[in-house]
């Protein structure tokens, strides 16, 4: 009962937020975006400088949502509006995300959940992994000069405190936390507007854990919007401005400000199935 009220309430609040609330300038609006069999149509507006947390059980559709948002899986319904617009919020352009390349061109970044199979290119060096997305965007004809590559790599190794003997070491030889930092560096080098992090702290040591959370805060302070998917609810609650809860492939709750807490999030995640069915789509 409560879950349903919450969901309805937050649905309205979120809409209001998207248009009027001044938590940040509006950036993007996902409107009724969905994909049959993967994720029910959802609305989500994103502001500059905010951290959106996404919670839910395994199989609740979190990763699928991220994949649809990044164009990895094509949406079957809805539209994505670039509210900020490419030239200073002048127009509200519709984005057509037919693949990661479109999403990247729109200023998105995505650090996937399965770092080993989807994130790192194991046998390439740290330097090459960092410049990979940047190089892909420039195209093969315009290689990034070697000196520039080295500068970028050394910069990020220092800034993110990547523990390595050097930029030429293969990324596969690093620890999980340091690999994750390299993947983050790859996207930071692109200076994205909207960064999606799927389980950014899974399988990494406690020190790197805290560093990554701090980094997320720093990035949003500069105006970047970050969507964090995490099963570790404590850290999700700590880092998020807004928490979206998914269950059975649909958004069932959105918590903002004071509402964000372990207990409400757990309650939304675990509500009985009957509630899910009655919840507004």
């Amino acid at each position, binding site marked *: 009962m409560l879950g349903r009220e919450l969901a309805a309430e937050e649905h309205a609040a979120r809409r209001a937020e998207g248009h009027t609330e001044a938590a940040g300038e509006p950036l993007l609006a996902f409107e009724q975006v969905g994909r049959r069999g993967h994720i029910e149509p959802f609305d989500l507006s994103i502001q500059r400088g905010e951290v959106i947390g996404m919670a839910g059980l395994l199989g609740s559709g979190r990763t699928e949502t991220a*994949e649809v948002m*990044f164009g*990895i*899986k094509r949406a079957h319904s809805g539209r994505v509006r670039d509210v900020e617009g490419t030239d200073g919020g002048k127009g509200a352009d519709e984005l057509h995300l037919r*693949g*990661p*390349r479109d999403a*990247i061109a729109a200023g998105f970044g*995505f650090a*996937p959940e399965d770092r080993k*199979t*989807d*994130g*790192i*290119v*194991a*046998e*390439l060096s740290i330097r*090459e992994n960092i410049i*990979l*997305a940047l*190089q*892909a*965007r*420039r*195209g*093969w*004809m*315009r*290689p*990034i000069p070697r000196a520039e590559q080295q500068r970028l790599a050394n910069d990020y190794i220092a800034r993110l405190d990547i523990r390595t003997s050097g930029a030429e070491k293969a990324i596969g030889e690093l620890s999980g936390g340091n690999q994750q930092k390299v993947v983050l560096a*790859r996207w930071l080098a692109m200076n994205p507007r909207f960064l999606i992090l799927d389980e950014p702290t899974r399988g990494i040591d406690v020190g790197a854990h805290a560093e990554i959370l701090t980094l997320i805060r720093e990035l949003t302070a500069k105006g970047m919007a970050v969507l964090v998917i995490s099963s570790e609810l404590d850290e999700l609650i700590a880092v998020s401005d807004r928490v979206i809860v998914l269950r059975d492939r649909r958004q069932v709750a959105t918590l903002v400000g004071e509402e964000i807490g372990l207990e409400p999030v757990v309650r939304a995640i675990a509500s009985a199935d009957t509630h899910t069915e009655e919840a507004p789509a």
Partner: protein
Amino acid sequence: MMPAGVKRVLPQLITLAVLVALVSAVFPDFLQLHYSDGRLIGPVIDVLKRGAPVALLAIGMTLVVATGGIDLSVGTVMAITGAVAAAAIVAGHGLLWALGLALAAGLCAGLFSGCLIAFLGIQPIVATLILMISGRGIAQLITEGRILTFNLPAFSFLGSGHLLGIPVPVWLWLAAATLTVVVVRRTALGLLIEAVGINRRASALTGINARVILLAVYMISGLCAALAGIVTTADIRGADANNAGLWLELDAILATVIGGNSLLGGRFSIPAAVIGALIIQTINTGILLAGFPTEYNLVIKAALVVAILVLQSPLLAGDLKRVAARLTRLRHPAPATKKERASP
């Protein structure tokens, strides 16, 4: 840059040196060179010249293998392009038309295989097998099953002519290898090929257009096969659709592997693969010069290749990972299955 480059091909150079010593033991005049009629003559020059087709094929094959793929069609593409060139000459067209049409045929062949692989997601070994089998029929249709001979000295020059005392085919593979190395290393193409070969999915997620990369490597491979076909056809002044390039795809793959390139994809070296082609040709020429009965040809070749592959592994800077990779390769002979997950 240079020291790293030399270090990469050092195992291949050592292998080649050992092999040359071995051949010299059975044929003492192997290293003898003399100059007559404005040409350098000697067994070593024969190796450089006769190694041209496989060296050319190995250039393209290395890029294909770097993406985790394989191109079984190159031998057949040699037959097709040779037939196209010969047919163009017989029909009365000039040198440029013959070359242009042959190269275009090679590009088309690469485009065909590349499309099957990049867009339809067909496994490279299957996709290129299609052309390997059907292509020879296409070549036979063009030549009507006979050896299509022609008389165009300018074209024959590419197969048996000399330039500055060196056979033209040698210049051709040197130029093709240099050009390809410059293109892939001075642009970002090499890095993108390696990234796609190591992890296609992760590469696609960073915005690399993996399909275009795959298309590109198969087209380059087709182009290299066309050059090899031109050299072979020009050499015997005739297009032999039944035999041109027969089984050479296997020698090209072998050259690539002897060059230390993993069939699983990833890091690659074109110079090492080309030296690999010369290693194979040194074995072939050595066998011919040694004068053993022909029944031993294949046994000797196989024994030497096995010895090279075994000995070369620990030589690679004691890199145990490579040994492990080779073992996995033995256990999973089908190339590139693990990393061949479709791009999103």
